């Protein structure tokens, strides 16, 4: 029997940050920023994640040779289009060196798209869907949809990686 990290969490009853899974309310999950040895392939792992409000997401730079950011698609972030709920607060981690972390607590349901500043043009983007079970999937901002994991897939699987 394979015991999932979530099962371990529930058995232990600990509020630990773990490599991403879908997160229940009050939990903390991690998204890793990863890259290969030459820096040619970089990404968020996982790229798509579902969490319940209120949950905290921690981004950890697990890439030993590069700096990364977690930056919300928002006009306040380098004039990017709005791709988070209008009433949600945007974020920008600034550059994280290897091993550094940054966290955001999500309270407003909706679809949150974000990117890595130096790697957006290399396709390093991610999507977080904040939704409670049984609630219809929220609608993502229009356009650019092929850059992100589909909301429906994230809702079904909890996480999408790669």
């Amino acid at each position, binding site marked *: 029997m394979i015991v999932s990290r979530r099962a371990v969490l529930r058995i232990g009853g600990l509020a630990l940050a773990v490599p991403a899974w879908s997160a229940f309310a009050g939990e903390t999950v991690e998204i890793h920023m990863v*890259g290969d*040895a*030459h*820096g*040619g*392939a*970089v990404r968020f792992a996982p790229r798509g994640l579902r969490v319940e409000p209120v949950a905290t997401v921690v981004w950890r730079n697990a890439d*030993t*040779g*590069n*700096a990364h950011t977690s930056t919300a698609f928002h006009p306040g972030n380098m004039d990017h289009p709005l791709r988070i709920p209008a009433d949600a607060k945007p974020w920008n981690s*600034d*550059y994280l*060196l*290897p091993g550094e972390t940054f966290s955001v607590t999500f309270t407003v349901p909706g679809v949150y798209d974000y990117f890595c*500043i*130096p*790697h957006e*043009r*290399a396709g*390093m983007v991610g999507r977080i869907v904040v939704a409670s079970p049984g609630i219809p999937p929220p609608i993502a901002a229009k356009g650019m949809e092929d850059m992100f994991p589909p909301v429906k897939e994230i809702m079904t699987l909890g996480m999408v990686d790669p």
Partner: protein
Amino acid sequence: MKLASIAIAAGLAISSPALAAPTVDQAPPPAPFQKVSSLVKLPDFIPGIGGLYVDPSTLPAGPFLAYDHDGKLVSTIYMIPIADLQANKSFDDLPVPGGAVDHVDIYFNAGHPGVEVPHAHVVLWHVPASSEGLVAK
């Protein structure tokens, strides 16, 4: 007497190491090179590359100078944006301040602070391939 003083001064100038032309063999290289991690947020020592220096006026191409943990020059790196190559831009007469080249690596990099676009790293190694481990981590 005056001639003798000039001769002594000239002799000192020739023999004094302090007045020898600066080289890039040992970190830190002379100005205008600056440590990359002091210019942008990158680790002081990048695994696979080493401690990196660049003259900011030469960005993005460089040359970047990479040093091992003992401060010895191991490679000279040029960072060439893919979009510039596709736009038929050429990079001519790039200086090679680091001396003899043992071998060359060329690989794709998705970007990093300082060169935030997909680009190619052209690495002129000044040490044998068997010594690349000096900057592995």
